[in-house]
């Protein structure tokens, strides 16, 4: 009977493709918009995730995110090192600065000072050069997305001279980093160098990056550090979440994307619901005949479920495929750098498709189940 149901469904090509299109469109809209939404707000956490080796971030109690920070006195580093369970701790500086390029343009950049000796705080991978170039005087490493903003003509930035706080800075490498929410140009340099590049204030130490001893959980360590030093300590994941929360709280992004996703859902319900109802109504006589011949309501339900299932499978598959093509197609674009599809999102859109089909299928089925077999004799 399911074979017949599928035949009935695909026999009406117009409605079948209408249904598939409706589901595919909804899936695409929901999946793609949710993907972009998640990736966009996770830009708030990129500063945290770019540093691959720190278990815990320690900061002034008023600091909120990697970019919204209040510097600490330099002895905070030693205070943190004195805490039991801290395997290592290194200084980390993040501050905004204005840079003058060799053409004389002014560009706002964020300067990141990494530990002089270990270079902890640099992104994991480099696009051009190696982290060792920082040992040369006046060296900075630029991030790859910042590179496209700063050198729009695509020429090699290696050896380019910049002027930062009246100091000379030479680009000697390009880091492979996830850009920040604002896609600001980021310059990595040594901590001691960064002190010179950032206009002076008394305290400079933005963060202390901490590695936990084996056997000490980051959560436990943050508790100890906060207790002993009075500074604010966050685990890597907590701090990444702080960055995301900051964007959620301070931008209209969740609302905008929420509206789009809802629209996708409504469009899906509307298209699929209408088409499905039309399809069932067109076939109501056949269903009535089947019921008279001796097909139980349970089998009818299974038939409609199979039809919905096929539409759902094809529509969902094409929709997800579309999203994958979208993300894959734009992966070379700096705006979309590092974009990925979190595995939860296809599951969410699958649930949405399920709800759409269950809802519309139920509505359409009600007609069929209400049809009296006797109606076929009239």
């Amino acid at each position, binding site marked *: 009977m399911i074979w017949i149901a599928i035949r*009935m469904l695909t026999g009406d090509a117009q409605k079948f493709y209408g249904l598939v299109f409706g589901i595919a469109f909804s899936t695409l809209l929901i999946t793609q918009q949710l993907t972009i939404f998640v990736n966009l707000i996770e830009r708030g956490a990129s500063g945290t995730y770019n540093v691959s080796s720190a278990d815990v971030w320690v900061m002034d109690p008023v600091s909120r995110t990697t970019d919204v920070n209040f510097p600490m006195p330099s002895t905070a580093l030693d205070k943190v090192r004195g805490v039991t369970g801290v395997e290592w701790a290194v200084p980390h500086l993040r501050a905004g600065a204005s840079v003058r390029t060799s053409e004389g343009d002014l560009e706002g950049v964020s300067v990141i000072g990494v530990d002089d000796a270990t270079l902890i705080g640099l992104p994991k991978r480099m696009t051009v050069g190696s982290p060792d170039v920082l040992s040369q005087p006046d060296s900075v490493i630029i991030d790859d997305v910042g590179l496209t903003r700063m050198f729009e003509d695509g020429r090699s930035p290696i050896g380019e001279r910049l002027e930062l706080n009246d100091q000379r800075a030479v680009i000697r490498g390009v880091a492979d980093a996830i850009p920040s929410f604002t896609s600001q140009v980021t310059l990595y340099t040594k901590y001691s160098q960064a002190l010179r590049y950032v206009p002076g204030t008394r305290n400079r130490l933005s963060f202390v990056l901490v590695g936990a001893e084996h056997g000490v959980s980051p959560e436990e360590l943050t508790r100890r550090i906060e207790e002993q030093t009075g500074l604010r300590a966050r685990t890597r994941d907590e701090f990444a979440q702080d960055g995301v929360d900051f964007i959620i709280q301070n931008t209209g992004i969740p609302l905008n994307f929420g509206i789009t996703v809802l629209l996708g859902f409504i469009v899906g319900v509307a298209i699929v619901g209408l088409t499905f109802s039309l399809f069932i109504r067109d076939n109501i006589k056949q269903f009535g005949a089947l019921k008279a011949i*001796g097909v139980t309501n349970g089998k009818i339900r299974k038939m409609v479920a199979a039809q919905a299932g096929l539409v759902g499978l094809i529509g969902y598959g094409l929709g997800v495929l579309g999203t994958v093509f979208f993300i894959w197609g734009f992966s070379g674009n700096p705006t979309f750098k590092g974009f990925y599809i979190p595995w939860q999102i296809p599951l969410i859109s699958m649930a949405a498709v399920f709800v759409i089909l269950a809802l519309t299928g139920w509505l359409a089925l009600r007609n069929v189940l209400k049809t009296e077999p*006797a109606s076929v*004799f009239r």
Partner: protein
Amino acid sequence: MAETDIQAATTAKAAICSRGVTRDFKAGQQTITVLHGIDVDIRAGELTYVVGESGSGKTTLISIMCGILWPTEGEVKVFGTDIYDLSDTELVEFRLNNIGFIFQQYNLIPSIDAANNAAVPLIAQGMDRLEAREKAVAMLEKLNIGNQAGKLPSQLSGGQQQRVAIARALVHEPRLVVCDEPTAALDAASGRRVMDLLREVAVAEDRACIIVTHDNRVFDLADRILVLEDGRITHDGSEMPEGH
């Protein structure tokens, strides 16, 4: 059907026994009684016509007799089974196994070919699709349209569609065939051919065949004619009464 076999011995020729079948329809505040206590036996091996004006209740009567419409009162035994004593699911099963339907508008599924349309009851019974199709093709051949087996209903003429519908009604060898206005959409010659065909393939020793019609051109082919007027049987005989 073990129980029907036992019943068959007692009521040898009574395929359907309806006793005191009454049916009311509610129209707003009013209750309209369509059938007034019908007592009739339909015998197997005969071609029985149910004839009447529209509104006389003939469709209601055969709907009740073949188990798709509940009577308000009375009981119906089909081959000894009190069908309105069965649960809903059992009744559906009973219809599937014992009754073949030929609808006025055929109600073929447009997106599957003639053979598959004819095989629907077998498929619904759970038979493998290809096996069912084979049997259906055999039945179509019996009805002289075996060469049309692979065509969609929309590619067939009205008469051919009718034959496919007949094949569907007979393919699972039901013991009761119910036929609603089989000739209504056909010209006189085709109508007659269909009736001849029905006589030929549907009437069997242990099979009852009820045809609802008001087509006077084919009355002469009936074994028995029941005339219904205002919910009552006014005539029961092998010939039409005078005046019709």
